[in-house]
């Protein structure tokens, strides 16, 4: 497939096209189909947000906020509600300015998540991005469980042109991390990216293994800034909350990478997680090429979600 260079917004819009079609056609008919703001009206909004995987709780919160504002500002027109709704979600999804500090200093980025969400791909893409910014990157291939995971990552490392430290299948992942830290130090790398094996968050022994990896990084590389990204599949439903919650118990999560956002999934779970756990989405994956990992922009994201066409700026 010939993928032209698109700006972030264009890419996101392309990825979110289907998203918008479903969510927005619903929204538009709501905002135009009702003549007054009543319970039925709110119920319809609720349905649409739930269809977007925002989840029951986040949806209820959003509606409550919306109701309060409508009352406060004495809004009578359903159409005026739209901007309010968009604004409140935007506000909620805003990423702090300091969110990407790890790109600026000596840092270790630990990438974790359940099976099949796209951790290895994310590490590969991230390596490419950092490398193109002129950083010296080392990758640790600590997924020693899945067959050929190391080979997969090596392919990405080669594409990005960075060095990878790996181990045999079945090797202790913590020892791979240990070796990678030594390598990163001796090569004076700016960023050490650690890929890990996919693990379901309810598997105790695998989560213990993650704790061990975490401890080793703290102990052996204490001078490095810590960034811990949990990768969530954008097509995942409410279970993503449980994932974020339980990975958060074994490692201090500093951000979320939301992958597979180029399909028809609405990725609304990001709003739910932000709302319930206050973990910001930092990156969004919208395709399979190395350029398809983008910084998350709340404005663009919500605009694209609700098909707001003004202030379209490429990045």
């Amino acid at each position, binding site marked *: *497939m010939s993928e032209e260079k698109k700006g972030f917004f264009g890419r996101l819009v392309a990825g979110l096209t*289907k998203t918008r079609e479903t969510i927005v056609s619903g929204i538009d008919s709501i905002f135009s189909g009702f003549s007054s703001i009543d319970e039925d009206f709110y119920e319809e909004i609720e*349905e649409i947000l*739930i*269809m*977007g*995987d925002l*989840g*029951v709780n986040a949806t209820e919160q959003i509606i409550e906020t919306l109701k309060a504002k409508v009352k406060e500002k004495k809004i009578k027109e359903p159409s005026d509600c739209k901007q309010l709704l968009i604004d409140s979600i935007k506000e909620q999804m805003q990423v702090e300015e300091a969110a990407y500090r790890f790109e600026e200093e000596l840092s270790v980025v630990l990438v974790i998540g*359940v*099976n*099949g*969400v*796209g951790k290895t791909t994310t590490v590969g893409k991230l390596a490419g991005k950092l490398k193109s910014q002129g950083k010296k990157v080392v990758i640790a291939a600590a997924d020693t*469980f*899945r*067959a*050929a*995971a*190391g*080979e*997969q990552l*090596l*392919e*990405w490392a080669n594409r990005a042109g960075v060095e990878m430290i790996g181990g045999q*299948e079945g090797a202790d992942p913590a020892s791979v991390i240990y070796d990678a830290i030594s390598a990163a130090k001796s090569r004076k790398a700016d960023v050490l990216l650690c890929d890990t094996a996919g693990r*379901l*968050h*309810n*598997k105790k022994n695998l989560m213990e293994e993650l704790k061990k990896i975490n401890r080793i990084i703290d102990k052996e590389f204490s001078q490095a800034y810590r960034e811990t990204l949990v990768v969530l*599949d954008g*097509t*995942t*439903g*409410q*279970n*993503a909350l*449980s994932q974020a919650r339980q990975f958060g118990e074994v490692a201090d999560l500093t951000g979320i990478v939301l992958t*597979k956002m*180029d*399909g*028809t*999934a*609405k990725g609304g*779970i990001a709003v739910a997680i932000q709302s319930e756990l206050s973990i910001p989405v930092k990156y969004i994956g919208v395709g*399979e090429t190395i350029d398809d990992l983008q910084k998350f922009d709340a404005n663009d994201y919500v605009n694209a979600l609700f098909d707001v066409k003004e202030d379209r700026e490429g990045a």
Partner: protein
Amino acid sequence: MAFENLSEKLQNVFKNLRSKGRLTEEDVKAALKEVKMALLEADVNFKVVKQFIKTVQERAIGQDVMNGLNPGQMVIKIVNEEMIALMGSETTEIALKPGSEVTVIMMAGLQGAGKTTTTAKIAGKLKQKGKKPLLAACDVYRPAAIDQLKINGEKQGVEVFSMGDKQNPVDIAKGAVEHAKKNGYNVVIIDTAGRLHIDEDMMAELAAIKEQVEVHQTILVVDSMTGQDAVNVANLFQEKIGIDGVVLTKLDGDTRGGAALSIRAVTGRPILYIGMGEKLSDLEQFYPDRMASRILGMGDVLTMIEKAQEAIDEDEARKLEQKMKKAEFDFEDYLSSMGQMKKMGGLTSIMGMMPGLSGMKMPEIDEAQAEKGMKRTESIIYSMTPEERRNPSLLNPSRKKRIADGAGVDIAEVNRLVKQFEQARKMMKQIPGMMGGKRGKKGRFNLPF
């Protein structure tokens, strides 16, 4: 945890629905509102939920509440039955050609659903059944996908047919089928690359494989954690290439797996297997009834109700309840309640049916050990005179010694049992409400949920 939340919620609603003989519209709507939320939290697609709730509502309103159930349980019973019906009522196997005829199976799905792992797992299963499977490595896109399949195939002792990553997947599939025919393989499983259902080119590739190789079974692999989007995925795969069956992966996580219901509703195709772990042996048969209770999050509460209904003699239960309330519960009652418990399938079986406990593995409870303990308790009680059983306060040290000798246990064990018994009696006095008898119909022995 998700499981507990739902059960608690439903129970709270159903508390308000007790002591009525027939399901009124109001009752049903109140109950179904919670069921609806529960299903949405379980990621069942909104439209599927809406349709489902409508069906149940029509069926439930005006129904007589079955003898022995409260209205809330009655609604759940109907909900459960409808879900099982929707899920396909029975287990289905992959249809294979007889003897040496070659069956061609094609795997399809989104990225990261678990196709490659599932492919190898299915091969291993078929090999166990005496088939001779061949795996075809047609994922030429994802780096190292072919290596992954090769390693997994090796672990299963199944050969992998590969032509590297420079060939067209259609040609590889053709080559594999030819290779199979020449070399006496009777099943070919084609592993394909993960793809988005809206990616026209990639979907066309699958259609081309199907067109140029005679594919007998197309299996869609879906991550059980998928959200509302599951309907779009299933719909497009069905529409563009046509599917014959579904494998749901990653069900060893804590997802409620509502996607199963959505996919089934959209495609009408059976769910064949569920992935229950990373080991290649962790591919299990799909049971619609188990999936229904998982999505609903009620454990196997209904099964428990049914079993309890069969097992517990009403009069006996009423007497027992009265005795418990007055703390007149004696060793005779202890014996008979133990007997009832056995009829219901033993301690672990009952715990497994409890909502919130069912999903968990319970290493703490060693079933054999627990049953053994119950046997010993039984033999101690049998060593008492009827008089002593009815009036435990008679038990002085010399009587206890005699009982210990009779049961072949140490006197300390008799002491422990008597002590536990006294404690249990005290507890029952404190919480008569737990037995629920007051509100249940005819003072029946209601279970505490």
